[in-house]
C-alpha cells in the first residue's frame, strides 16, 4: 500500500532525525572537536597529572559503586519479587528515590549528614576519617545516584521467568544457594548485565551529587566530569574535549563489551 509506505518513510525520518539531532550529533561533535587539533594535542591534554588523577578517581568510583550496586540490586529485586515479608512495597518505592531527587539535593543531604557539623560526620572525623571533600563522600554520592539501575532491570526479568525453574531445581536436590547460582542468576544474567552497563555509565558520568561533596580540589577530588567542567571554565577547550571524549569512549566500550559477550543462544 503506497500511502502506508509514505507514512512509514515519514515516521522513520522523524524518528531518525530526532535521534540524530538530539543524541548522535552532539556526541559526534565532541569527538570531532577533540580530534580537530590532532592526536598529539589530545595525548598531551590527557597525560597531565591532573587528568590522570581524574581518570583514576573516576575508575575508583566505578570499581566501588558497580559491584556494590549490582550485589544490592540483585538482592533487592529478589526480595521484592520473591520475598514474602511485609514492607516490600515500601522498599520498591524508595528504590526510585535517586531517580526522583535531583543529584544536587542528594549531594547536599550527604553534606549535611557527613560534613564537619553533620550527624555522622563529626564521629567519623574523630576516628580520623574525612568523608566530605574526600573520596569516601564521592563514593557515597556515586553509589546513591546509581543505585536503582540493576534493581529496575532485574525485577521484570525475575517476574517473567517465574518460579517453576527454581522449584524444579529444589525438587532435584539443589539448596537455595545452589539454585541461585545455577538457575536464577543465569536466567536473569542479561537483566543484570544491562543494569551493570547503565550503572557504570551513571557512575562514570555523575556530576551534580559528586560536585557538591567533592569540593573540587584539582588533582585531589576531581573526577573526569568535574575535570571537564574545570578545564572548560579555564578556557582550555582541548583539555575539556579530550576528557569528554575519553568519558564517552569508556561508556561506549562498556556497551560494546556487553553486546559482544551476549551469545546467540540468548536471542532465541
Amino acid at each position, binding site marked *: 500500500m503506497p500511502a502506508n509506505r509514505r507514512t512509514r518513510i515519514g515516521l522513520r525520518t522523524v524518528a531518525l532525525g530526532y535521534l540524530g539531532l538530539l543524541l548522535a550529533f552532539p556526541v559526534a561533535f565532541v569527538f570531532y572537536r577533540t580530534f580537530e587539533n590532532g592526536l598529539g594535542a589530545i595525548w598531551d591534554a590527557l597525560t597531565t597529572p591532573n587528568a590522570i588523577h581524574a581518570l583514576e578517581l573516576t575508575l575508583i568510583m566505578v570499581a566501588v559503586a558497580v559491584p556494590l550496586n549490582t550485589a544490592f540490586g540483585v538482592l533487592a529485586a529478589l526480595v521484592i519479587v520473591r520475598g514474602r515479608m511485609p514492607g516490600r512495597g515500601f522498599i520498591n518505592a524508595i528504590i526510585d528515590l535517586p531517580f526522583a531527587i535531583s543529584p544536587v539535593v542528594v549531594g547536599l543531604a550527604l553534606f549535611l549528614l557527613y560534613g564537619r557539623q553533620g550527624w555522622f560526620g563529626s564521629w567519623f572525623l574523630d576516628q580520623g576519617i574525612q568523608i566530605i571533600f574526600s573520596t569516601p563522600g564521592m563514593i557515597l554520592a556515586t553509589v546513591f545516584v546509581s543505585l536503582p539501575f540493576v534493581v529496575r532491570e532485574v525485577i521484570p526479568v525475575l517476574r517473567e521467568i517465574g518460579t517453576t525453574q527454581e522449584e*524444579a531445581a529444589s525438587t532435584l536436590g539443589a539448596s537455595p544457594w545452589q539454585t541461585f547460582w545455577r538457575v536464577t542468576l543465569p536466567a536473569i544474567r542479561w537483566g543484570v548485565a544491562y543494569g551493570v552497563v547503565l550503572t557504570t555509565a551513571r557512575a562514570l558520568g555523575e556530576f551534580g551529587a559528586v560536585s557538591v561533596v567533592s569540593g573540587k580540589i584539582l588533582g585531589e577530588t576531581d573526577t573526569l566530569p568535574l575535570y571537564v567542567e574545570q578545564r572548560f571554565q579555564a578556557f582550555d577547550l582541548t583539555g575539556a574535549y579530550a576528557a569528554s571524549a575519553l568519558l564517552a569512549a569508556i561508556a561506549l566500550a562498556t556497551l560494546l563489551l556487553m553486546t559482544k559477550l551476549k551469545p546467540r543462544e540468548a536471542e532465541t
Partner: protein
Amino acid sequence: MIEVRDVTKHYNGFTALEGVSLHVPAGSLTALLGPSGSGKSTLLRVIAGLESPDGGQVLIDDDDATAVPPRRRGVGFVFQHYAPFKHMTVRSNIAFGLKVRKRPKAEIRERVDELLALVHLEGWANRYPAQLSGGQRQRMALARALAVQPRVLLLDEPFGALDAQVREELRIWLRRLHDEVHVTTVFVTHDQEEAMDVAEQVAVINEGRIEQIGSPRELYESPANAFVMEFVGPVTRLGDDEVVRPHDVSIETEPVSGGREALVKRVAHLSFEVRVELALDDGRDIWVQLTRAQAEELELEPGHIVWVRPMAGRLAAAV
C-alpha cells in the same frame, strides 16, 4: 509408597484441599483426576513439598515428610510446562540433580547417557530446550526427574500441553516406562480417558475433596455418586436425581412396571453402537446406547412410543 493423611490447605479464604487422605501403593501408577480448580495439582505439590499443608501429614516410604523441604524428599517432579533450565543443554538439564549432589564426573556422564537412551534423546544431548519439540521437552523433563532415582515420581498434567497425536503416543510410552522403571508414580489430569487408560488406581477429586478412589473399572461400574459417574463416563438423566449410564437403560415396546413412556426422536447407527435419542413424557431429552443386535430386535423408528427404565442397581447414588 505415599500416604496422605487428612491434608487441608487454604489460600486466603479459598479451600484448595479439605481433609484429603490418599494411599498410593509402592510401585503403582496412580492418577489424580478432577476438573480444573478441584485441588488436584495442589495435592501433588503438597506431596512434593512445594506447598506446605495447613493441617495433616504426608508420608513417603513410611517417613513423615510433612516438614521436609522438597530437596530432601526424594521426589521427582515433572512440571506442567516442564520447567526446563533454558540456559542449559539437554545433557546439563538431565545431569543437574547429580551435579548438585557432587557425584563424580564419570558417574554423571554414564548415568546421563543411560537416561538419554531411556527417553530416546541420544542425538539431542547438546541441544538447548528451545530447540526441542513439546514431546521431546517433556521426555527431557522426565529424564531429569528420574536421574536422581527418586522414591516417587510426580507428574503435573504431563500431557496437557501436547497435541492429540503426541499425547496418545506419550501415554503408551509412559505406561511402558513405568513397567521398566517401576517407581511409584502419581500424575494429575483433567482428562478421564487419560486417567482410565494409563493409571492402575484413580482418585477422583472435586472441590478439594476426594470423591472416590478405585481402579478404573470400579469407578466406571460402581461410582460412589453422580459426580464420579458423570466425570468418568457418559451419562443420561431420567430425572433430576436419576443419573444412569446410557447403556444401562432398557427399552421395552410394551408398558412395564417402573417404566416411563418416551417418544423415539432419532436413531443413529454409529459403528458398533446404536444411539437412540428420546423425549420423556415430561419433555426431558435422554439418550440410550444399544448394541446393533438390541436395536434390530426392537425395530425402533422415529415416532414410536416406548417404555424406558434404568436397569436394576444402575442408578447413581444421590450426592
